[in-house]
C-alpha cells in the first residue's frame, strides 16, 4: 500500500507539472494572463510538486526500512541483515532509486527557486518555473516509463539480494545525494538561461540572479566529487583516489564547465561582457550533467562503477538528453544573435584573465570528454574495444590546468577593464621567489625532482602566496577590525578561500604523486618489516563478526620513525547474504600523510608453520591535502552565496562609495 502511495503521488506530480508548465507557456506566449498571476501560480505548483515527490521518496525509504521484499527494488537491493542506515541509503543505491533521488533533487531545487525568487521580474520568474517544471515532466516520465522503483514482486521474496557491499560505507550514504545536488543544481542556471533566451534579455541582472545558484550547485558538486574520491580511496583497497574512470570523468566534466561558468558569470554580472559565452556555458554545464547521468546509468562505457545496464533505458535517457539539450542549443543559436557583445575590455585586464582561465578550463574539458568518449569513437569506426587510461589524462590535464593557477595568482591584483602589466607582475615577484625556494627545498630535502613536480609545487606556492599577500594588503588598507573585514564582502573571502583551496589541492596531488611509496609484504605472525622509515609488526589474524559480515581482521602495529605507535586493523570481509569478499583498508591518517594498509590473501600453510598473509602497504604523503583543498573550494562556493550583493534589500546600500570599491575587488 505504501509503495502504491509513492507511485500515485509521483504520477500526480507528473500530471500537475505537465498541465501547469504547458498552460504556463501557453499564457506566457499569448500574454493572456498577467505574469504576476502566472508566476505565483507556477511557484505554488513547484512547492506542491516538491511535497508530492518528497512523499513518494519517503514511501520508497519506508519500504526499505520496513524490509518490504514485495517491492522488487527492495528485494534486489536490500537485505534484512543490512544495518538500518544502509537500508536508508539503499533506497538510492539502485538505478531506479537514484533516478527518483534525481527527481527529488530537481523538485527540491525548483522549490528553492520558488521560495527565493520573490524579487525577480514576474515574467522571468514564471518562465524559469515553467522550464523547471518541464524538466520535471521529462524526468518523472522517464522514471515511470522505464525505471519505476515501486514495482511489486509477487509473491514477495523471503529475503532480499542485498546492497552491493562496495556501497556499504558511510561516505556512500551521502556521496550520491551531494553529487546529484550538484548535477541537478545546474538545472537552475539552465532554466535561468532558457528563460533569458526566451525573453531575449541577456543582461547583467540575469547573470546576477544566476550567480548564487551556480555557486551553490558548484559547491555541492565539489563536495560530491570529493566524497566519491575519498570513498574510492578508503574502500577500493588499493590506495588510489582518482582513476580517470568514465564515471568519474562524467562528474568532472560538469564540474569543469561549472567552474568556468561561475567565473564567466562574474564577468557578465560586473561588466556585461562575454554574454553569449556565459549563456552557452550554463547550457553546457547542465548538458554535461545529463551526459553524466546517461553515461553512469546506461553502462555505455565499461566502468567499475556502472551498476545498471539496460539498452532500452539507455535509449530513453539519450533521447531525453538530446531533446532537452537540442532545444536549448537551437534556442541559443536562434536567440543569441540578437544579443550584443557587451562591454569591451583591453588585452590586459581582469576580464582577459578570467577569459583565459575559461579557455583553459574549456580546453581541459574538451580533452577529458575526448578521452572519455574515444573508445566509443574507435568502436564506431570499427576498431577494437579499448580504453583510454590515466597516462593520457595526466598528460593533458596538468599542463592545461597548471597555467590556470598562475592566472589565478594574478587575478586579485588585476582590475576590470584595463590593468597595466606592471601592476600585475610586481606583486608576483615575492610569490615567485617563494615558489622557487619552496620547490628547491623539497627537491633538496626529499629528492625525486621532476619537471611536473617542480611546476606543481611552484604553482601551488605561487598561488597561495599571491592570494595571502593580497589579503594582507587589503587588511592593511581596511584595518583588522572584524566589521571592516566583513565589509570587504563575502565574495572576496569566498574567492580567497577557494583559491587557497586550489593551491592546497595542487600541492597535495603533486606531493602524493611524487613521494608515494608502496610495498608488497608477505608476513607471518610476529614478523616485522621495515617500511619507509617505520616498522610494521604483524600480530596475526582474528575472526570478527559484523552486523552482516564475518571478517578476518589483521592485527598490525605500526611504529613511526618518531617513536609513536598505532594499531592498524585492515579486514577481509565476507558478506553473509551473497558471500562477496571485500577488503577494508586500515588507514593511519596524518596531516603530513597517511599510511595505508590493506590485506591480501592467506598463503597456503606449509607444515606446522603459522598462517602467513600477503599485505600491501602504502605511504601517501599529503594526500589529505587533496580533500582539504576541495573542502576549501566548496566552502568558498557556499560563502559566496551569502554575499549581500545577491540580496535585493542590500541593493541600495551597495551604491555607497566604499561599497563600490569593495565590490570592485570581489569577483
Amino acid at each position, binding site marked *: 500500500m505504501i509503495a502504491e502511495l509513492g507511485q500515485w503521488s509521483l504520477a500526480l506530480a507528473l500530471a500537475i507539472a505537465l498541465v501547469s508548465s504547458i498552460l504556463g507557456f501557453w499564457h506566457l506566449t499569448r500574454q493572456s494572463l498577467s505574469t504576476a498571476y502566472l508566476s505565483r501560480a507556477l511557484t505554488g505548483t513547484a512547492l506542491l510538486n516538491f511535497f508530492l515527490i518528497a512523499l513518494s521518496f519517503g514511501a520508497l525509504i519506508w519500504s526499505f526500512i520496513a524490509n518490504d521484499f514485495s517491492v522488487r527494488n527492495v528485494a534486489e537491493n536490500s537485505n534484512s541483515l543490512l544495518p538500518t542506515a544502509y537500508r536508508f541509503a539503499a533506497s538510492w543505491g539502485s538505478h531506479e532509486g537514484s533516478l527518483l533521488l534525481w527527481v527529488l533533487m530537481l523538485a527540491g531545487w525548483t522549490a528553492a527557486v520558488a521560495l527565493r525568487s520573490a524579487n525577480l521580474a514576474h515574467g522571468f520568474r514564471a518562465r524559469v518555473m515553467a522550464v523547471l517544471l518541464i524538466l520535471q515532466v521529462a524526468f518523472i516520465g522517464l522514471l515511470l516509463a522505464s525505471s519505476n522503483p515501486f514495482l511489486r514482486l509477487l509473491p514477495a521474496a523471503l529475503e532480499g539480494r542485498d546492497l552491493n557491499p562496495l556501497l556499504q560505507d558511510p561516505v556512500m550514504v551521502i556521496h550520491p545525494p551531494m553529487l546529484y545536488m550538484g548535477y541537478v543544481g545546474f538545472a537552475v542556471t539552465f532554466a535561468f538561461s532558457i528563460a533569458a533566451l526566451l525573453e531575449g534579455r541577456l543582461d547583467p541582472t540575469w547573470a546576477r540572479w544566476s550567480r548564487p545558484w551556480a555557486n551553490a550547485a558548484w559547491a555541492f558538486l565539489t563536495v560530491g566529487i570529493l566524497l566519491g574520491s575519498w570513498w574510492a580511496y578508503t574502500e577500493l583497497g588499493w590506495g588510489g583516489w582518482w582513476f580517470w574512470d568514465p564515471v568519474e570523468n562524467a562528474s568532472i566534466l560538469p564540474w569543469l564547465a561549472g567552474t568556468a561558468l561561475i567565473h564567466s558569470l562574474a564577468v557578465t554580472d560586473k561588466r556585461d561582457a562575454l554574454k*553569449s559565452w556565459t549563456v*552557452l556555458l550554463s*547550457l*553546457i554545464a547542465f*548538458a554535461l550533467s545529463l*551526459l553524466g547521468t*546517461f553515461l553512469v546509468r*546506461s*553502462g*555505455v*562505457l*565499461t566502468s567499475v562503477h*556502472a551498476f545498471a*545496464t539496460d*539498452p532500452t533505458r*539507455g*535509449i530513453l535517457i*539519450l533521447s531525453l*538528453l*538530446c531533446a532537452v*539539450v*537540442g532545444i536549448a*542549443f*537551437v534556442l*541559443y*543559436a536562434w536567440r*543569441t*544573435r540578437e544579443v550584443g557583445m557587451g562591454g569591451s575590455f583591453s588585452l590586459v585586464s581582469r576580464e582577459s584573465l578570467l577569459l583565459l582561465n575559461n579557455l583553459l578550463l574549456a580546453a581541459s574539458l574538451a580533452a577529458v570528454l575526448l578521452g572519455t*568518449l574515444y573508445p*566509443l*569513437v574507435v*568502436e*564506431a569506426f570499427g576498431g*577494437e*574495444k579499448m580504453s583510454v587510461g590515466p597516462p593520457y589524462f595526466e598528460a593533458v590535464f596538468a599542463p592545461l590546468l597548471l597555467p590556470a593557477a598562475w592566472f589565478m595568482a594574478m587575478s586579485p591584483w588585476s582590475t576590470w577593464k584595463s590593468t597595466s602589466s606592471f601592476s600585475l607582475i610586481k606583486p608576483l615577484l615575492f610569490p615567485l621567489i617563494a615558489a622557487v625556494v619552496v620547490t628547491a627545498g623539497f627537491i633538496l630535502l626529499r629528492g625525486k625532482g621532476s619537471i611536473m613536480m617542480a611546476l606543481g609545487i611552484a604553482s601551488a606556492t605561487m598561488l597561495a602566496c599571491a592570494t595571502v599577500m593580497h589579503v594582507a594588503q587589503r587588511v592593511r588598507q581596511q584595518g583588522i577590525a572584524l566589521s571592516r573585514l566583513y565589509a570587504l564582502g563575502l565574495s572576496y573571502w569566498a574567492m580567497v578561500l577557494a583559491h587557497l583551496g586550489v593551491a592546497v589541492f595542487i600541492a597535495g596531488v603533486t606531493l602524493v604523486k611524487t613521494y608515494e611509496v608502496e610495498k608488497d609484504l608477505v608476513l607471518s605472525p610476529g614478523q616485522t618489516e621495515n617500511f619507509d622509515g617505520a616498522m610494521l609488526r604483524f600480530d596475526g589474524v582474528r575472526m570478527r563478526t559484523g552486523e552482516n559480515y564475518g571478517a578476518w581482521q589483521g592485527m598490525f602495529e605500526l611504529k613511526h620513525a618518531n617513536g609513536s605507535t598505532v594499531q592498524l586493523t585492515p579486514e577481509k570481509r565476507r558478506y553473509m547474504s*551473497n*558471500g*562477496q*569478499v571485500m577488503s577494508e583498508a586500515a588507514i593511519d591518517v596524518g596531516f603530513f600523510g597517511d599510511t595505508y594498509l590493506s590485506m591480501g*590473501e592467506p598463503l*597456503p600453510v606449509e607444515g606446522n608453520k603459522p598462517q602467513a598473509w600477503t599485505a600491501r602497504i602504502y605511504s601517501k604523503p599529503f594526500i589529505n591535502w587533496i580533500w582539504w583543498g576541495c573542502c576549501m573550494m566548496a566552502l568558498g562556493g557556499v560563502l559566496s552565496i551569502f554575499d549581500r550583493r545577491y540580496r535585493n534589500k542590500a541593493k541600495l546600500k551597495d551604491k555607497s562609495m566604499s561599497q563600490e570599491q569593495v565590490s570592485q575587488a570581489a569577483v
Partner: protein
Amino acid sequence: MNRKLFLILPIVSLLFLAVLLAKGLQSDPRKLESKRVGKPAPEIVLTTLDGKQFNSQSMQGKVWLLNVFASWCSACVTEHPKLMQLAEQHRLPMVGLAYKDKTSDTVSWLKQHGGNPYDIIAVDLDGRVGIEYGVYGVPETFVIDSEGKVRMRHAGPVDDEFIAQHVEPLLAVSNVGNTK
C-alpha cells in the same frame, strides 16, 4: 560568418555525440574480446586433482570447455549448477582449471556444492596457465575447438545464453568427431 559557425557548433557537436552514444549503446560493454580468440590455445601440462598428468594435446580433435574456477571464488558458486547440468548431458568434455587453489580446498568445495562437473581437473596452483590464457578474473570459460584453437572466451559465470549461443552451435557442427 564566424559568429554563425560559433552559434551552430553546439548543435552539430550534440548531433555527433548523440549518434556516437546511440551506436555505443548497441554494443555490449561487458563483452571481453580476447586476443587469444582464434589462436591456438596455449598448451596445458599440469597435474590433475587425482595426481595424474594432464596434457592438453590429448584433447586434439574434440570440442572442449576449459572452465577456470576456484574454491575462493564466490561467483563460481553461481555457475556451478549450470556446469553440473551441462555435465549431465555428456555433450562435451569439460576441463576444470583449479586456479590458485589448494587441492584439499578444491575437493571440499566440490563436495560442498553438490559434485564434480568436470571430466578432468587440472591444478594450476601458481596460476601460470591462468596467465598464459590471460585470465582476467574467476570464473572464466574458454571454448576450444577440435583444431585446438580458442573459439570463445567468456568472463563471469556461465549462463544459459552462453551455452545456447556459443557451445551448442559448435557441438552441432562437430558432434561427429566428438565422441567422449
